[in-house]
């Protein structure tokens, strides 16, 4: 599915002294099967933006389009099934006595038959590498495990677009690595992914395209190599190092991801 936001403006508490314009005329598309990384500091509008993707928030003006059709005309339940949103700290919403029951909750509400529900629970738990936790209580799991189970709950709806808002925050480096691997796996299954993060170093390792938000506006959107060499303050350590080398007269090309950058730097050093 192609998800498009067109000219989205969002004002919180309009016509009150607390009025805040969180988004001003933002337009972008999530292309089928891509990983779109959304970067920006606190207060840049990242979370407000992604909550428009399944109309959890309605724009003050502008449109959300699903394969060209206005999303406002779709049933909310259908839209939310097709565009899955995983909030920051999704584990806070875990509630069932076992992991399997927790993950089964949303597909059951879709009215699927038990066999189909069971399949989906198994598939989504296996995608996040948590099948072995099926019979456990979600409350007795580690932080990283809880996070993955919560994501499985959204995957069980079979979304075509998965929006992850700061999915790695407060996880340890290993659990972070697991999540990035999960994003790569999901991408291979054809799911589009929107990854919101303030950790540029992490986003570059999985994103096909990057969108940088700043004060409710898009600063840049495009291929990582274009965006990061254009806006150094949002660039990952890899790009910043290559740029610093170019400032003192050494050309290492325009690599972005870690392994690619290390290879380029080795070539430079070895002459």
């Amino acid at each position, binding site marked *: 599915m192609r998800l498009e936001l067109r000219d989205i403006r969002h004002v919180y508490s309009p016509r009150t002294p607390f009025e805040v314009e969180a988004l001003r005329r933002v337009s972008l598309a999530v292309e089928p099967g891509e990983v779109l990384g959304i970067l920006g*500091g*606190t*207060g840049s509008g990242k979370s407000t933006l992604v909550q428009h993707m399944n109309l959890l928030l309605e724009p003050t003006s502008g449109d959300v389009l699903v394969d060209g059709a206005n999303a406002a005309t779709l049933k909310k339940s259908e839209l939310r099934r097709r565009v899955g949103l995983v909030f920051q700290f999704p584990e806070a919403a875990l509630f069932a006595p076992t992991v399997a029951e927790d993950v089964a909750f949303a597909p059951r509400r879709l009215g699927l038959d038990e066999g189909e529900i069971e399949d989906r629970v198994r598939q989504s738990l296996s995608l996040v590498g948590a099948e072995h936790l099926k019979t456990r209580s979600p409350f007795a799991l*580690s*932080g*990283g495990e809880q996070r993955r189970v919560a994501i499985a709950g959204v995957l069980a709806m079979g979304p075509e677009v998965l929006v992850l808002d700061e999915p790695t*925050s*407060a*996880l*340890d*480096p*290993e*659990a972070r*690595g697991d999540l990035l691997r999960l994003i790569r796996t999901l991408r291979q299954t054809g799911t589009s992914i929107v990854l919101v993060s*303030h*950790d*540029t*170093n992490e986003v570059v390792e999985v994103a096909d395209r990057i969108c940088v938000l700043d004060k409710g506006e898009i600063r840049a959107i495009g291929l990582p190599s274009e965006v990061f060499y254009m806006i150094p303050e949002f660039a*990952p*350590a*890899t790009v*910043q*190092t290559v*740029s*610093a*080398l170019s*400032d*003192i007269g*050494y050309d290492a090309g325009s690599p972005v991801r*870690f392994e690619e*950058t*290390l290879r380029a*730097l*080795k070539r*430079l*050093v*070895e*002459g």
Partner: protein
Amino acid sequence: MADPTSISCENLNYSYPGAPGPALSGVSFEAPPGEYVGVVGPNGSGKSTLLRLLNGLLVADSGMARIGGRDPKSEPFEVRRRVGMLFQNPENGLVAPFVEDDVAFGMENLGVPREEMQVRAREAIRAVGLSGYERREPHTLSGGEKQRVALAGLLALEPEILLLDEPTSMLDAAGRRDVMGRIGTLRGDRTILHVTHHLGELLDADRILVLNGGKLVADVSPERLVLDADLLAKNRLVLPPLSRLATGLGLAAARPRTPEELAREIQEIIRKRAAAR
């Protein structure tokens, strides 16, 4: 005179009620006054438990903890007066309508006289670089600023020891730099124990304690830790990207603080190689 050891633990053990195994077992270390000690390890390794035992939020099952020579078990109030703890979430700690009231809140509870309170609040606000913010409302501040307000509230109590429990984990890159910059200026005058998942924040620490499965598995300098691939891997520790690039290129120091520093180190090898030819 201050006690020669600021923090001292011997064979500390703690299990959470109902948990299958101990959260902390047999942990011993000492830190002299003014030392900056990093604490790292995977989720569930016992890092936060250690901090909570040191300020008396938890009481050890066995073993000994001493803060400036005092036992948090028998003198919890004395110990808490000497220890300030900064938590992950900057939102949780802020209680008052204005920054200066928030910073003064802890002192009010201790019955510090009003005039002294004002002086100490202003001084603490200055120390975290927020002079001019006294009458701002905390909810209008950025995450990094909120965390600095929380830090000022601790400093106003003049603690001998600061316990930092992942103080930057909820902040964006700018907030993280902001808070880390401030913490850097507080070194030396007080003992700091800093728990984090970001090894990059500890490259200048005096030493780093590595916890895993509730045990203290290493007590090393940052210089040694960044080059010890085995120790890093075994404890699921990941170096910051600049250090990983440096080690990948075989650079000796492997602790570049900025991209510019790494670029100069690379320039250095290129020149050396050219000269050797």
